[in-house]
């Protein structure tokens, strides 16, 4: 297993800059998730590390050594894709053995059998070993693809949205299994996804990527509670963080004067450029507290049942905001309800740049 470092990587496709001065440091044995929307540069990053593409600038280190001149095979990393590329006419066992039978590897038959048996046991696919892969379900096929990566005992696992073709329930189960597997193997995982739930639930650390740039790196807790900007704030978390635009006047953010005014620390205003007073107030739905003594008032625009809780959309003036309430709370559309914000959880962003005006703890990149 090995540490992976990307230093100031830039990659262009014709005039389009796919990655712009990207630096990452993934610790040995770490589960690192690269999270971002389609087109952010996630897959490009994986391909560069795997050696399937070369960067235009910057360097890539695996286990401390620069691998810029190494071929894909020499880098000893394993890629798992969204589409399981298995050999359909081979059995599961043959598919697992395949990567070990290459001419470049001199691995004894005993060793091959041992590795296949161990991988099959870890992934709980022992009962499928003699089955042809075209007779497997989607979840089983993805387990076999992961098994094919495991038997190689690579220095790094690279995973490109491996769960996104599976249905919701299976994704949920495999999410936990993958995390379990990574902990058991003590392996370095770089996992790419556009699904924030996967990122939050599996990552030791999450790097949020947008337009080829890293926006924020941190633990799931840091990313969720201290988003660096409004992009991270709305991309991570469901429902998306409420964002309300307002101006600072006399120590308050005025969103809707008289109806929605929020006290703000003086320190926030000092971080704005001189003459600028417009900010975006961010508050997560679970920090909008509906109930007596709220002090603010909103009309109920919609109610969504989520089983364990309800998500209520409140309308204040022209502003819509979402609040999480207990499933048992009776709440009728078009009624007026009191609410308040959890003052300790409010985020303030500069309206113009979207950057968080509060202290955002940056994850120090190892060294």
């Amino acid at each position: 297993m090995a540490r992976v470092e990307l230093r100031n990587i830039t990659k262009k496709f014709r005039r389009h800059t796919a990655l712009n001065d990207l630096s990452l440091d993934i610790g040995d044995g770490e589960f690192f998730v690269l999270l971002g929307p389609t087109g952010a540069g996630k897959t490009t990053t994986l391909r560069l590390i795997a050696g399937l593409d070369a960067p235009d600038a910057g360097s890539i280190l695996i286990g401390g050594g620069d691998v810029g001149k190494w071929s894909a095979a020499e880098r000893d990393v394993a890629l798992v894709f969204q589409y399981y590329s298995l050999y359909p006419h081979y059995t599961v066992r043959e598919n697992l053995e395949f990567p070990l039978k290459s001419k470049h590897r001199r691995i004894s038959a005993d060793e091959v059998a041992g590795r296949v048996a161990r991988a099959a046991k870890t992934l709980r696919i022992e009962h499928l070993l003699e089955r042809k892969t075209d007779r497997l379900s989607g979840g089983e096929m993805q387990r076999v693809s992961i098994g094919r990566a495991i038997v190689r005992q690579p220095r790094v696992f690279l995973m490109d949205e491996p769960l996104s073709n599976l249905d919701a329930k299976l994704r949920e189960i495999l999410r936990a299994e993958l995390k379990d597997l990574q902990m058991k193997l003590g392996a370095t995982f770089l996992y790419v996804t556009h699904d924030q739930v996967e990122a939050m639930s599996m990552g030791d650390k999450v790097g949020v990527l947008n337009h080829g740039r890293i926006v924020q790196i941190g633990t799931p807790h840091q990313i969720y509670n201290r988003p660096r900007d409004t992009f991270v704030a709305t991309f991570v978390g469901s429902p998306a963080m409420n964002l309300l635009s307002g101006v600072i006047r006399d120590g308050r953010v005025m969103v809707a004067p008289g109806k929605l005014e929020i006290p703000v620390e003086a320190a926030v205003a000092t971080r704005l450029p001189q003459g600028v007073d417009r900010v975006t107030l961010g508050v997560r739905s679970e920090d909008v507290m509906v109930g007596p003594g709220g002090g603010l008032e909103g009309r109920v625009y919609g109610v969504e049942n989520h089983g364990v809780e309800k998500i209520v959309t409140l309308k204040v003036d022209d502003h819509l905001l979402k609040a999480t309430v207990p499933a048992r709370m009776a709440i009728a559309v078009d009624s007026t309800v009191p609410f308040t914000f959890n003052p300790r959880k409010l985020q303030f962003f500069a309206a113009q740049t979207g950057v968080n005006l509060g202290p955002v703890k940056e994850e120090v990149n190892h060294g």
Partner: protein
Amino acid sequence: MSGITLKNVEKYFGENYIIRKLNLEIRDREFLVLLGPSGCGKTTTLRAIAGLEDIDSGEILIDGKPVQSRQAADRDIAFVFQLFALYPHLTAYENIAFPLRATQESRGVVDQRVREVAKALRIGNLLDKRPSALSGGDMQRVAIGRALVRRPKALLMDEPIGALDAKLREEMRAELKHIHLQNEATTVYVTHDQVEAMAMADKIAIMNEGVLQQVGSPSDVYQYPANLFVGQFVGSPIMNVVSGAIRPGDGYTQVMLGEDDALLRFPNELYHKVVEHRHAEDELAVGVRPEGVLVARQATDGYIPVEAHIIEPLGPYDIVDLKFGKQLLRSRTASGYVEKAGDVVWARLDEKQTHFFNNRTGESLQIRL
């Protein structure tokens, strides 16, 4: 506006049933969601209501009148598909106005209706744009506008937001529901996404392999699933289910999870209710949602020690895997409540949120404690 009734509807291909003995009542102005995995018969049911698909037996009534003999066009129903089928050469305005052009409405009335619908859908500013200039969400808004502008008796939607990304789906969900509350068209909505169903429906009908499993309000199907399939299909994370057995105790009922992996104390009445049901004491499946697995950091009466395994921090809360012996049960806790994998904490199952199923048939024993 009107109600829709399905009586003993069946459809089959040779030996295979697509829909089996389906009885369903959709009341006037109701928002009913047909929920199920792919291939469960939900889309076929929707298409049968629309008149796009023939049925082999049974009856479909709209407004109390049988409609089998009526063509799709004469059923006064609007259909919205997952893929927005807009006319590419027409503006959003003309796309929405299209169904009215064939009618005898005056220009003034058409204009008024189009603008009303566009305002409700918040696309008033996009009316002169062609579909190619619109985002996916806006295209679907136009498609819905085109369905609503006719003021049909019923609105049928087949995964209308399934092709949109997660954030947009979240937004559209709330909007569609709001539009429904405004115009009150009887709506039948098909989806495989239980979050969508729970969030939008007045009533959910859950189907599996052509058979209706349960009909009820979102809180009904969530709190009182009729069987294991419904229990595990609705809700995320998935309901924990382990095989179990019960024994009478001294003033309590003992619930055993797995093969004596964990012994839990439940109220006395549980044993009597299972016996009343004439159900075998050791052929139970015990189901509990993550929020029904209660966790304490210290030893607490009625709680048993369990080891924490994987912790998924999801933001507002964590999902923690707990080892009840060999059985893994997932619990929903406050964020950061259990610190790390390997920690020993104390846990029990909330009896009010624990479900007992027949382990062979999967049917709920309907025991409420």
